[in-house]
């Protein structure tokens, strides 16, 4: 008889993820090269090779709730070094998308808020308006109070002021003529259409 904690591999999720990422997690032989070279491994709850293995075990909820998938900086070290040519960074991208879609509480909210702030800025003007994006990020992330307390907001404001003074953070966003085209691309995304 199996104990309650036994892991019953769920191959359906593996197949689903291999399809959405276009990558074969099944080819992994757990050499740990990905985790050894990962610059953010020190801050992760699950290491990259563990994530790959857990995908094969079908541990969907644990993987999609992990902070690691949001801490990945897409530096592509793992992808470049995998002896089995698995694009690990692309699998992580697919996991981020699956995580948002799943409705589970995100293991790390802030990077996702950052990406949303960047994309909504691009959607409006066709280019990234950094000052607007930073403002939107600070408001949406809910970090304002803790950042004031820790003094990091003041520190950031000092650097920000220096950048602003030097013309590196502009007040007026650059707007491209083809804004409609860009909006159309985002609309397709919202409707879930594929080109």
């Amino acid at each position, binding site marked *: 008889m199996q104990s309650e904690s036994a892991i019953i591999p769920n191959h359906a999720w593996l197949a689903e993820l291999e399809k959405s990422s276009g990558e074969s997690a099944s080819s992994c032989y757990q050499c740990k090269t990905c985790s050894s070279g990962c610059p953010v491994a020190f801050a992760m709850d699950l290491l990259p090779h563990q994530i790959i293995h857990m995908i094969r075990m079908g541990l969907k909820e644990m993987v999609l709730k992990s902070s690691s998938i949001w801490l990945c900086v897409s530096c592509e070290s793992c992808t470049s070094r995998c002896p089995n040519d698995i694009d690990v960074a692309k699998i992580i991208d697919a996991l981020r998308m699956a995580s948002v879609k799943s409705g589970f509480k995100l293991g790390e909210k802030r990077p996702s808020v950052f*990406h949303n702030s960047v994309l909504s800025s691009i959607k409006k003007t066709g280019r990234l308006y950094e000052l607007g994006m930073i403002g939107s990020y600070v408001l949406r992330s809910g970090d304002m109070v803790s950042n004031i307390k820790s003094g990091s907001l003041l520190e950031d404001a000092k650097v920000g002021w220096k950048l602003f003074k030097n013309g590196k953070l502009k007040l007026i966003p650059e707007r491209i003529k083809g804004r409609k085209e860009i909006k159309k691309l985002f609309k397709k995304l919202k409707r879930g259409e594929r080109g």
Partner: protein
Amino acid sequence: MKVSYYPGCSLHSTGLEYGKSTLEVCEILGIELNELTDWNCCGASSAHCTDEVLAIELATRNLVTAEEAGLDLVIPCAACFQRFKVAEKHIQEGKKPVVDTPYQGKVPIKHLLDFLIEEENFKSIKEGIKKPLNGLKVVCYYGCLITRPPKVTDAINYENPQAMDELLSLLGAEVYPWSYKTDCCGGSLMLSRPDIVVQLSGKLIQKAEETGADCVATACPLCQANLDTKQSAISKNLGREVRFPTFYFTELLGMALGSGEVSQWLKKHVVDPRDLLKSRGLL
């Protein structure tokens, strides 16, 4: 020589001096940079983790414009460069999901650094040196996305790239070897997890100092921003004052080619590198 040019959003804002020094250097070298008409943001670090098709479509809208222009496309930003290469491979290799675009995949996409060390440009740089960077000790920092992953970027020496080392050696600088050329600075976690960026960039600064170099040269606006703007937090972390100058390689190139605009670029840095240059008799 004429090429198409994609500055990307950063070179108009936080990486302003990278953009200005790129334009100046190319003008001195007689390279005509034609900025892509009505270019849009490539989506950089955020689009590809949100929607694969959107990420490719944002890059290919620019590639279509470049294909119409019919020239090689030069990109100074590492992240933009890599996103354009991802789109190129996706379309060339007919990968799924299929992206609806007229782009044929025919534009040669080059990072500025690789473009400048091409034979003809390397020769004009060599002939144009007015003020060699003698006495300047530098480590070259490439970051992640100029070279990785090699199946996308087509980089050969992706663990130990050489382009910047060769270029700065040509300019007369003393280029120090180090093992952190392609280690990550923390990239786009700058706002969302600055603690991680301070760790990673702090390690890079520390390791660069340990080589005995005076400064670090970069070829990416996000790398430079992380290394330059996080030094007060890095100092707090290390319990000592750190002030390590961070250049764009184009600023050093402009200086060696005798540009009069160098100070205008350098004064925009958070850690002002001008004292170092004065102490070496270069400014």
